[in-house]
């Protein structure tokens, strides 16, 4: 049986998704400030790692990694509303890439599984 990551198209699909997803979050006034960075390449690389994880691809992130990576953003006010907005942009990105609703649901479920770690709870 193929994994969700393989069904979605593997690494090339992640690369395509990063370009679309990053444009969406930068244009989304609710969350753009968390993604505005002088080093956009480094920011994009982090998003690639994030999208690889939620696509069910190879990753070794632990809950502790997620907490540490977002701790600074939590002190800047990162909350459930922002998390929801990211998931919403993620869904819109996948729809644009022709991913079906069942698969989008699976991706959203993986994202949901790290919500408490990302928000430092």
């Amino acid at each position, binding site marked *: 049986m193929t994994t969700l990551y393989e069904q979605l198209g593997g690494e090339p699909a992640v690369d395509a998704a*990063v370009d679309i997803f*990053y444009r969406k979050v930068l244009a989304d006034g609710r969350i753009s400030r968390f993604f505005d960075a002088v080093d956009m390449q480094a920011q994009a690389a982090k998003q690639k790692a994030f999208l690889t994880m939620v696509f069910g691809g190879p*990753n070794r992130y632990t809950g502790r990694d997620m907490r540490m990576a977002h701790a600074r953003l939590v002190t800047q006010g990162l909350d459930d509303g922002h998390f929801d907005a990211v998931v919403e942009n993620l869904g819109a990105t996948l729809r644009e890439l022709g991913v079906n609703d069942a698969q989008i649901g699976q991706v959203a479920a993986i994202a949901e599984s790290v919500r408490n770690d990302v928000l430092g709870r």
Partner: protein
Amino acid sequence: MPTLTWRGRELPLEVGETILDALERAGEKVASSCRVGACQSCLVRARGGALPAGAQKGLRPALVEQGYFLACQARPDDDLEAAPADDLPQLRATVARIERPAPDVARIFLEADGAFAYRAGQFVHVARADGLTRPYSLASVPGDALLELHVKRAPSGAMSGYLCEALAPGDVLTLRGPAGSCCYDDSRPAQPLLLAGTGTGLAPLLGVARDALARGHTGAITLLHGALTAAGLYADEALRDLARRHPTFRYAPSVLGAAPDDPRAGALRDHLARALQVTPGARVFLCGPPETVGPLQRDAFLAGVKLRDLLVDAFVTAAPAR
């Protein structure tokens, strides 16, 4: 069993082990995050030996050429020597001459003491005799006899003050580098190039433009140089001359304070926005202070420029001395 040489230590590699695993096992501190080759946190540089397949996955051509690789993706079959990404070679350079094309800009030409391999568009850390060190971009291209730096005199800037006012021909500086990947590569020779920067952000762009022309780039190259006043267009003459000699090269100066009927009038940001509109599919190089290039790269990306086509060098100024 292959051996990794790292900062003078010889570390035996276990079968199937990555460089990152081996370094961590040996107690070496290396940044890392995703460990699957996506986040590029564990970037290091090969100094000798052959890199295994996949170790440079997803890196820009300029980084690949210089031997950078991802420690988490490298499972060497043979001996390898590697170093941290910021562990750069050092050399001495003697000041050959200094030009002052604008009241607050110095063009410094240096003769390197020995061979110095670099790519146009890269930067070096320049150190004064007492150790004060600042990064400066190279405006020269590797074929030039001398290295060239452009220094803007910053108010109360310790290093720029020294370089612009005290430095004289015959003086010796220490350079560490090169670093940076804001470089041309000839993978798509017909792609249009847009190069934009303010002030001495021009330096690396000049190198990139000359490098692209020398490598036979056939697509249009547009260089946008922004300044507050016409006097700040400190390479006006040389760039007009370059445009006369190369039909594919266009020089587009902009002057924030120019009269409205002057075609150069307006902010670089507006000039770049118009250039992006009429140049779909361009590769975009942006150089200058972060407050300039931050908004420019955001504009370019939201206008549809792909991330892989966005090459940015933000000049971060040191905090003022107290």
